[in-house]
């Protein structure tokens, strides 16, 4: 297993694609393994619903498979696949006209708990009780705030955190300079911090 992992890392994405197009299905499996978690997290965070995220995930891979012949092997496969995912996610959000935010009185469906709504959370979140804010709740607030970020800042943050792309790769996906990507990330972080501070969660983060 260990030798496999080492071998996997030494092979580039382009080599795996070559292998797959020559008829080796194991190369595709490796490629899928390499991207499944990163890509799914990225899409899931964008969309906010597991079922939809899985549909989009499958659709992205379907597009990748059918367009591999058009992919120019330039060592930027990660930029390519996340660009496809980004376009699909933005299409989806535009079509459904609702961002993956949760309205204040809506209960979190994905979490296995006692039906605590965001409203209650904020009400109970007075500075005195801020230390009691549960870690899971911080995550929820964070995700909600991310969903409310301006599109461009959100895209950079998603690509950096969930897709785990470097800023150089992000600049390829978004067709902007590294400096622009850095600035958007910086704004996004400041924005998030300010919003969390408003809600009294910042102390938790220290």
């Amino acid at each position, binding site marked *: 297993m260990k030798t496999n992992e080492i071998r996997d890392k030494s092979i580039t994405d382009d080599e795996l694609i070559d292998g*797959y*197009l020559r*008829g080796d*299905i194991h190369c*595709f*499996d490796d490629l*899928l393994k390499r991207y*499944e*978690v990163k890509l*799914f*997290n990225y899409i*899931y*965070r964008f969309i906010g619903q*597991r079922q939809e*995220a*899985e549909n989009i*995930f*499958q659709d992205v*891979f*379907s597009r990748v*498979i*059918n367009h591999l*012949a*058009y992919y*120019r092997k330039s060592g930027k496969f990660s930029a390519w696949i996340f660009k496809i995912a980004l376009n699909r996610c933005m299409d989806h959000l535009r079509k459904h006209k609702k961002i993956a935010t949760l309205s204040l009185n809506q209960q979190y469906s994905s979490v296995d708990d006692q039906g605590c709504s965001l409203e209650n959370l904020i009400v109970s979140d007075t500075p005195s009780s801020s230390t009691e804010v549960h870690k899971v709740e*911080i*995550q929820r607030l*964070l*995700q909600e705030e991310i969903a409310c970020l301006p599109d461009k800042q959100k895209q950079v*943050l998603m690509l950096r*955190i*969930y897709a785990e792309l*470097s*800023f*150089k790769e992000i600049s390829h996906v978004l067709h902007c300079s*590294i*400096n622009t990507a*850095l*600035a958007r*990330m*910086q704004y996004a*972080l400041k924005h*998030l*911090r300010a919003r969390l501070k408003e809600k009294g969660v*910042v102390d938790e*983060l*220290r």
Partner: protein
Amino acid sequence: MNCDRCQKLYLLKLDGQLSPDQGKQVQQHIERCPSCQKEIRQFQALYSELEKEKNFSPSEPILQKIRQEAGQYLLSLENKTSSYLPRVPVLLPRFAYALAVMAGIFFLISIFLPTMERWQMSRLKTESPFVLPQKTSQADFEETEKNFRDVYLVKVKKNAENTFSIFDKTVSLAKISSEKYYFSFTLPIKNSQDTIKDLESQVAEII
């Protein structure tokens, strides 16, 4: 280095994309600047918080479907390559190929056009009563007249479209664009004493 630049470079540093020199500069700035220290602590806290929840995986049936599709695509690829020509990888945009085809056509035309002209000329030669209707300059004309007794060059004037007069006789020739031409005819000359009048009558006979 100002604070804004320092904070941006710090983000790059988290990527591991900073040169050791730049890393040192960032570090030095942070050590001196309390506001950047605070800012960066917050960045780190947010980063680590964000990094926590990202271990979601797609469900196994979805992965299975994708693997199936990949296998099917491979099969379709094999069928295609066995029954048709191998797939041509797309290296250039399609219009580039269209341009290349057009350039090829122009190239072929440019090669065949002179050949076709020559072919038409040769057809003319066989149809014309003259042995060698041939474009020559005034200098060539004089040169030829001096050197070859049996070759006479006759001055031809253009009358109208495609019509020329040689010794008051009108002849039709193929399309010629210029105003004035000299044509050389090879005529049987009996001896050097032949006058231009003899020549005239011989030409008239041929025409």
